[in-house]
């Protein structure tokens, strides 16, 4: 199979997955509602802390700080949900029908990841419009906006690859949804909701080692600092590196499932 044909298959499967997502608004809703709710809650709860001089070095307001965490949270929700759809395809037999067709095997996985990226791009854009309407500012300008959208897209690849690997391995939507608390824990044990600078003890150590802290802080850089190369390194290259590993895991799970058929 040529690369061009595999790319076309991936594009069509991405299109199908995006349509599938749009047809289930109830599945998409939590990935929009909860991050926005937590950002609103955080900015109203912690706005007095944001007036402290040491916080002002991190962000100009708590809302400006909370944007990155909300973006990451939304993307993690949506990517997990997309992987759940892949598991549903396996459970309901659509996956086997795909295998019976002359479709590129790699495209089955990449199509799902493509849809996770498309949803992430739309989601980050919608979030930014809403946050800016409520007073958030992107200090790094339009390139910073592209930086945020790109970071969301790459993060969706990283988490989508991992969760899709689990979906292919287990073939069970319950297992994928059941593993979501791990992602949730990853979020809380990072600086997504509150700055690392204020954490202490073992919790700070975990947050320091958590790659999500560095990704989110890269995104926060776009929101709160003048544009710098360091932001792209943290917000783009770390999720891209993780995506390489997680997609490799997904492809390996796929080849194992195919070998077992």
């Amino acid at each position: 199979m040529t690369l061009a044909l595999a790319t076309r298959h991936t594009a069509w499967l991405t299109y199908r997955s995006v349509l599938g997502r749009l047809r289930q608004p109830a599945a998409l809703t939590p990935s929009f509602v909860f991050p926005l709710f937590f950002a609103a809650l955080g900015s109203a709860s912690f706005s007095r802390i944001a007036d402290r001089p040491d916080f002002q070095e991190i962000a100009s307001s708590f809302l400006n700080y909370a944007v990155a965490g909300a973006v990451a949270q939304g993307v993690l929700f949506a990517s997990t949900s997309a992987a759940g759809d892949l598991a549903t395809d396996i459970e309901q037999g659509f996956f086997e029908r795909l295998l019976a067709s002359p479709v590129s095997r790699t495209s089955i996985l990449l199509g799902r990841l493509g849809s996770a990226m498309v949803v992430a791009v739309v989601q980050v854009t919608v979030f930014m419009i809403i946050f800016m309407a409520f007073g958030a500012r992107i200090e790094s300008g339009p390139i910073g906006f592209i930086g945020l959208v790109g970071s969301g897209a790459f993060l969706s690849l990283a988490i989508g690859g991992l969760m899709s690997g689990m979906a292919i391995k287990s073939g069970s939507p319950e297992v994928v949804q059941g593993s979501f608390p791990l992602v949730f824990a990853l979020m809380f044990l990072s600086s997504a909701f509150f700055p690392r600078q204020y954490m202490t003890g073992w919790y700070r150590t975990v947050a320091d080692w958590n790659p999500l802290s560095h990704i989110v802080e890269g995104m926060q850089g776009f929101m709160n600092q003048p544009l710098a190369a360091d932001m792209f390194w943290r917000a783009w290259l770390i999720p891209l590196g993780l995506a390489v590993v997680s997609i490799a895991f997904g492809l390996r799970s796929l080849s194992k499932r195919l070998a077992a058929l």
Partner: protein
Amino acid sequence: MPAAFVPSMVMPVFQLIAFSGAFGAAVKFAGIKNAMDWYVPLNAVQGASFGAMGVSFGLINDMQTGFFDRLLMAPTKRWSLVVGPMAGALVRAALPIVLVFVVGFIGGMNVPGGPMAFVTIVIAAIGIALVAAAFALGLTFRMRNMGAATLTQFAVFFTIFLSTSQVPLAAMSGWLHAVARMNPMTNVLRLARQGLLGDVTWSGTWGGLVALGGMLVASTWFALSGLKSLEK
């Protein structure tokens, strides 16, 4: 069904650790010595309510298997079909409360209010668990599907978080301050927290008891009227 119990026990413990670790500084800036003192009551209340909501899953299962129809045909008092599951909810609520206390002690929570501190937390947590269970039953009688459980979770989640869940009223600003002041959950959390932040007093207690009583009457009426509409 241990799988149904485990999340309701693990989540409050995880949330207690996560909130204390992540937002500990915010609570300390508000003058509270140890973040555990602020978050143990919150997670006891939330854990108990989420545990209690499990009655909704049991009821849906009974409806789908036809067991509930047999209960309706039996010569039992109708109110027992509401009060029975609510009593069961107490058992489901107890485990998360105990676990949260254990983690709180390990985390060094202070108990200046003495044993009464635990009494007030348990009253608040059990009260909200009963409210959540009755509300879940009322919704399940009306909707007759799993959506009722999800909606109850959303309702309890938003009611708790739109109160003084994260920081004291004085530290809040804008819309949240206004909402939290009106939210009866703020009084319930004040009742639960008072013994970990100072002495247990009547002034810190009565508002929570009134809020619990009001919510319990309203939610029990909602459950009983839901049962009536189901029979029609």
